């Protein structure tokens, strides 16, 4: 029972950050139809930037986020405007190809700068534990959970009640009509992509403490994010957060109850099972 609760707690905590990762991807898909296959490599980039800042200035990853978030947001805007935007509206596979290429560029760029050895970025809360009855959770996981949910709620409120948020939803629902309102559709798409990459920088800092990193890890994050987005029904906010929790929990159960390698397979197994019965994703109707 303790083990069960332990796995559940860990899964929920990590799953919330997976949800956050996927929200960025879902938003981008919603406004521009782009699925970014270099998503996970941008997480890598965020993590290695934190590592670099630690090596150079001994900054804690949580502090580094103050620098990495604006830098990554700017990188996101530049990448969308100059690389992805010219491809949007052409063959879907061209964008896939482009972002896959970007993934290789990022991966090998990181490899060139940091080398292929697994690395760790220390944080002051890294080994701190929080004991709640029988359940022991790591403090970085708790921080990740709190920040991810706070950001998810913040995003939700932003989408609902600001002009920028309503513009994002308008472009998602009918880009032509949005243009007729005087909304600059390309600009909204660019900002949304930048926002998505900025969120990744936050997620990178949240996932980093205690996690060994290596340049080739990006694809794993991309795949996990894709699972969550598809589970959530691509653009449904609540569905995506729920999908994050499901993938997080199944990963935690996999690693605790099964062997390491077999455990890593569990989220995919659960994903396939859910898709067999609910091919439209977890949600019953689109709420955006």
């Amino acid at each position: 029972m303790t083990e069960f609760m332990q796995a559940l707690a860990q899964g929920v905590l990590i799953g919330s950050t997976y949800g956050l990762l996927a929200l960025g991807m879902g938003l981008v898909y919603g406004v521009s139809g782009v699925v970014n296959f270099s998503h996970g490599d941008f997480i890598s980039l965020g993590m290695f930037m934190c590592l670099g800042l630690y090596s150079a200035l001994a900054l804690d990853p949580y502090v580094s986020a103050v620098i990495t978030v604006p830098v990554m947001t700017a990188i996101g805007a530049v990448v969308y405007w100059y690389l992805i935007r010219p491809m949007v509206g052409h063959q879907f596979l061209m964008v896939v190809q482009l972002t896959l290429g970007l993934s290789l560029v990022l991966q090998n760029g990181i490899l060139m700068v940091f080398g292929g050895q697994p690395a760790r970025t220390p944080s002051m809360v890294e080994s701190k534990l929080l004991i709640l009855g029988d359940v022991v959770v790591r403090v970085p996981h708790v921080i990740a959970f709190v920040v991810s949910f706070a950001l998810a709620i913040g995003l939700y409120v932003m989408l609902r009640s600001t002009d920028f948020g309503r513009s994002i939803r308008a472009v998602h629902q009918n880009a032509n009509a949005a243009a007729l309102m005087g909304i600059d559709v390309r600009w909204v798409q660019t900002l949304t992509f930048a926002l998505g990459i900025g969120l990744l920088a936050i997620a990178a800092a949240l996932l980093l403490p205690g996690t060994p990193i290596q340049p080739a890890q990006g694809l794993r994050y991309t795949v996990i994010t894709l699972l969550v987005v598809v589970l959530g029904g691509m653009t449904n906010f609540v569905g995506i957060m729920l999908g994050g929790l499901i993938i997080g929990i199944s990963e935690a159960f996999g690693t605790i109850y099964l062997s390491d390698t077999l455990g890593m397979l569990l989220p995919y197994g659960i994903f396939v099972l859910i898709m067999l019965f609910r091919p439209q994703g977890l949600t019953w109707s689109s709420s955006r």
Partner: protein
Amino acid sequence: MLEIEHLVTGYGGVPVLHDVSLKLGAGELVGLLGANNAGKTTLINNLSGIFTPMSGRILFEGQDVTRLTARQRVELGIVQVPEGRMVFPEMSVRENLLLGGINQRAKPHRAQQMEHVLELFPRLRERLGQKAGTLSGGEQQMLAIGRALMAEARLLMLDEPSLGLSPLFVQYIFGIIDRLHKEGLTILLVEQNLNLTLRHAQRCYVLERGRIAVEGSSDVVKNDPRTRSAYLGL
């Protein structure tokens, strides 16, 4: 207020409109008639800046707007109520109206403007919190017009406002158009419905396969045999 000079436009290099010239004075209600595929929607999408013409000029209050973006034109007050209404279905009526007034010029007075729109369409007030996708066709048309008014349109372009509506709603919508015209708004009314448009517009243009076939006051256009032939495609 609006002058179109020798406009040629099309898709992928194939012209759809050939040498179209058209004028609209301030405060006029002008009809743009034509059968399906005559190029009516193409014309107003050029006016809205969704497409850029191959040649020709568009002047709005003497300013050349031919190369301006859709957004810049909305900022000037050139606002379209699109064919098929195109409301944002998953957003509430209130959010749709707020989006209408999102441009920099209209934004400062959104609250007053919304009050004005809701007075014009009391039905929308009852439905403020409802998703636009759940409204009837007629209510969606009210919302689409209300949304354009939120943008503080100075030139309002309506694309087929009668399409798919019951006769009662058509009458109601045209009553609203008349009222807006009387309040001094300049309106370009794009319609397939010949008699209805001739009754409400002061002047009309008839498009036939991308060219202006007939133009003049509504009486002149009504009695011109070419009007009927443009419609029948003879």
